[in-house]
């Protein structure tokens, strides 16, 4: 899905090849693709409309910088606006001046409140804080058991309700106890509820009134569709929401709900859940989210980063060798170290539209890259320029020298072959200039 949208955008921007100012016609054409991308990402219909009107106003008439294409310019404007809307700065938990800090969690059924409670607790426990969990979900079977098992796992204390005890009473009791026990943080988990369930919405109002939380967080499934707007505004009307948590973002959803929620409530997204384990919690990064919603990788960042860190002369030299198909393992190692300068590899990959299309074996991670470098540096200069001479005993020696296995050496050589083949193809298609990254121009 990512690829589909990025290639569509690429296609739209190909039309915007001219120089000078961005005119209304081009902008409108470009934004049509952006609109599609946003809707496919589940950004709310009305939010998309307003957002695009905003972008258009900003974009039309803007001078196109010399160094980039109009398409890139438009992407940058869209991207900047998205980041701005998603909330510029990091928004951490507000700690109470007088501990314990009370955090109340609310949300629909199955959005991930209980798991998030444990993750947040774990984060503070790691900072040597004392955390108390409150099992406020008295409806879902075994919900309190779930929280209790998690509490045990991470070393938090817990209050469970007594038979028939209501959530507001459980919360009040727990907070009082936590204050006496000198806890730093109290996290109140609650039952999942639909925003149209009047009884349960009254219930959470009562819990909110009793707990007087320093921080009330709405936990929202990152896959949520158009309804995110209804959910967020309904909860906000009933209890004062301070921020949001976006869960299940380790999935392949584009997470447009983040933009909708942010837009209609004006409250920040504070955390992102990225897995089932209690460690899988990240701070919210508006820039990353913007990239993800657009589904096209951080084109702007890539352009900027590349300009900063790639040694232009070396790059030109490399391109030249590639074109003449003299690419050797030395060049390969060179290229790797260039990549490394640009930052963690997965980040770079995320920035390249279509990187997901790379052959499976070529999706390298940083660790694999380190091994690759070790292997190459264990070769003699001759071996590097003439890899055909690498017979079995040479491969064994290299494996030993680099602390890897013969399989890994074999695999690297296979990858190198693949890259060479790919370059042959690319060289053929791209013509004389041998440009390496024209996909987003």
């Amino acid at each position, binding site marked *: *899905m990512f690829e589909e949208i990025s290639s569509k955008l690429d296609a739209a921007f190909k039309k915007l090849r001219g120089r000078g100012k961005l005119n209304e016609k081009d902008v409108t054409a470009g934004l049509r693709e952006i609109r*599609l991308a946003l*809707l*496919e*990402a*589940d950004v*709310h*219909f*009305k939010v998309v409309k307003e957002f695009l009107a905003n972008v258009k106003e900003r974009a039309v008439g803007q001078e196109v910088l010399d160094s980039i294409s109009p398409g890139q310019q438009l992407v940058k404007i869209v991207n900047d606006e998205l980041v701005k809307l998603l909330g510029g700065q990091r928004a951490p938990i507000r700690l109470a001046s007088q501990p314990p800090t009370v955090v109340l969690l609310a949300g*629909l*059924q*199955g*959005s*991930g409140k209980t*798991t998030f409670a444990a993750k947040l607790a774990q984060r503070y426990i790691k900072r040597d804080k004392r955390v108390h969990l409150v099992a406020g979900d008295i*409806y*879902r*079977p*075994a*919900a309190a*058991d*779930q*929280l*209790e*098992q*998690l509490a045990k*796992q991470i070393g938090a204390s817990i209050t469970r309700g007594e038979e028939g005890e209501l959530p507001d009473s459980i919360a009040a009791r727990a907070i009082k106890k936590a204050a006496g026990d000198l806890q730093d943080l109290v996290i109140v988990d609650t039952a999942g509820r*639909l*925003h*149209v369930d009047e009884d349960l919405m009254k219930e959470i109002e009562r819990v909110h009134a009793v707990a007087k939380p320093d921080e009330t967080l709405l936990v929202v*499934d990152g*896959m*949520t*569709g*158009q*309804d995110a*707007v*209804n*959910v967020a*505004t*309904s909860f906000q009307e009933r209890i004062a929401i301070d921020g949001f948590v976006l869960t*299940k973002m*380790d*999935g*392949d*959803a*584009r997470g*447009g*709900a983040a933009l909708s929620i942010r837009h209609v409530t004006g409250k920040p997204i504070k955390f992102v859940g990225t897995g*089932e384990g209690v460690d899988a919690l990240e701070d919210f990064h508006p820039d990353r989210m913007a990239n993800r919603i657009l589904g096209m990788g951080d084109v702007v960042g890539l352009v900027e980063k590349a300009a900063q860190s790639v040694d232009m002369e070396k790059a030109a030299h490399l391109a030249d060798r590639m074109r003449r198909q003299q690419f050797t393992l030395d060049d390969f190692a060179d290229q790797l170290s260039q990549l490394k300068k640009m930052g963690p590899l997965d980040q770079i990959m995320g920035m390249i539209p279509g990187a997901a299309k790379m052959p499976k074996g070529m999706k390298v991670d940083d660790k694999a890259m380190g091994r690759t470098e070790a292997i190459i540096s264990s070769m003699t200069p001759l071996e590097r320029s003439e890899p055909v001479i690498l017979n079995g005993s040479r491969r064994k020696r290299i494996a030993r020298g680099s602390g890897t296995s013969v399989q890994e050496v074999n695999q690297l050589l296979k990858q190198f072959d693949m890259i060479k083949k790919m370059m042959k193809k690319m060289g053929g298609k791209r013509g004389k200039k041998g440009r390496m990254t024209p996909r987003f121009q």
Partner: protein
Amino acid sequence: MSFFKNLRAGLAKTRDGLVSSLKKAVQKDNNEDLRETLEEVLIMGDVGVHAADRIIESIAGREGDRWELLQQEMLAILGGGNGAEPYTAELRGKPHVILLVGTNGSGKTTTAGKLAAKYAAQGKRVILAAGDTYRAAAIEQLAVWAKRADVEVISQERGSDAASVAYDALTAAIARGADLLIVDTAGRLQNRSNLMEELAKIRRVLKKHGEEYPHETFLVLDATIGQNALSQAKLFHEAVALDGLIVTKLDGTAKGGMILAVRQEVDLPVRYVGVGEGIDDLMPFAPEDFVKALLD
């Protein structure tokens, strides 16, 4: 018939105005207005751009009562292909085996409990298998449902191999002459290939008892989610060959329109809808009601 009543009640007011202008546009034979308002209604119902486009194109140029045409078109999408035959919910083996899969929190365990109760009420002997061996207290949760439905539950301790739970449960179900075995599984996101492989393994070990197992594999989809449903349907289908969908949480204001998007791409019928947390809140899927709710 009235299971979508809450759906309407809780809707944002903006939609009400929208639907009345849609009705007007439909009558006026004005293609531009029709396209625009219809697109808005459909997308706000999570139908998605592509499926919405197809629906719009299919009626925009046609003669006749457009409101009728629109409903017909959507019913055709929902009821075509594998959805053409009415669902009998018949148990085809002894035991008949139902495998429930889906993302975290979509409603698998609750649906397992509701299904168990439904068949138990017909006098069938039902066994639940606690295949979620990962999430904290998932086994306890299913056990509570088993008690509510008054059926047996088979489980091992947390952390044990889910496939072996499923296999042993089927062994026991065969031995005890059960009519139905429902296998609950841990939630997983469809892009995690190792976890999808684990599901495929569950399916494979069930087949060791016979090719016919499991008779039905349902993807449990949360109606609140948007276009990601498509990726879910595709990838779960690839991993375990789905027989149908169960859409939960339709008692909220989410329209569940993404199943139209899903049905355009993957030929999977919707079999049940979940409309609450109670044990009886599971209904057979009625395409007419669904379409009405989506357009109203």
